């Protein structure tokens, strides 16, 4: 049987890949997908703790986090569409209206 450490290590590595994705990409949609990847990594560690403790609460938490992630994706993509309509680009280095 697999130790819980492996699940947590996988979760940490996926989270790190998400962080690097957020930092190096310029396309707003890919940045957004990297954020989804980080959410998934955290879900994995919640779920592994839930299973290894034999406690259902972690899974309920993951369920709610999925619902919040869905809401976040909907609103975020709407914002990206609105930005694209004004700027004709989703390159975050060109969205500098509020930057000084």
């Amino acid at each position: 049987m697999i130790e819980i450490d492996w699940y947590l290590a996988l979760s940490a590595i996926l989270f790190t890949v998400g962080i690097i994705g957020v930092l190096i990409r310029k396309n707003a949609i890919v940045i957004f997908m990297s954020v989804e990847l980080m959410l998934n990594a955290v879900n994995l560690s919640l779920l592994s703790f839930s299973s290894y403790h034999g406690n259902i609460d972690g899974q309920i938490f993951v369920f709610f986090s999925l619902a919040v992630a869905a809401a976040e994706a909907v609103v975020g993509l709407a914002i990206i569409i609105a930005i694209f309509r004004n700027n004709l680009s989703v390159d975050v280095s060109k969205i500098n209206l509020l930057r000084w």
Partner: protein
Amino acid sequence: MVTYVFIFLALLALGAAVGMVVSKNTVNSALFLVLNMVALAGIYLILEAQFLAVIQVLVYAGAIMVLFLFVIMLLNLDAEESLFNKFRVKYFIAFLLGITVLSQILYSLGNISDMLPEISPEMAQVGTVEAVGDVLFTEYLLPFELTGILLTAAVVGALLIAQHNVKSAPKND
């Protein structure tokens, strides 16, 4: 056997995540993310969380990623220039920051590794639809209903933000 399946799925998830970050075509990124989520659903199955594995495929790989693909097609983006055409200091710093975060997490995990839980005997009965639903509709009923309100608010907000209002708000660029 389970160990090999876990290693396979973990490598698949990892490779798909890296592919998502480095591929220059946005559609490819989205498809890599779908692959990553399906692999994670397999890992959820190993963890005996059947309900969440199905939800992961239905909601994430199904609904959310279709939404992403729709937006990508709608915006009709050009492929970004490749990340590795020239070396940039920015990438190096980002990579360094990522390694720092990873080593912090792994260090703190190593410190508590003797306190981590062993495999629980009731692990097998925990993740069924029956068990999840039982808790969800009794103990967590109020948060569940609040989730419904949150999703409604998100849909209404998305409609408001994304709709094209021709009359008001003249373009100021």
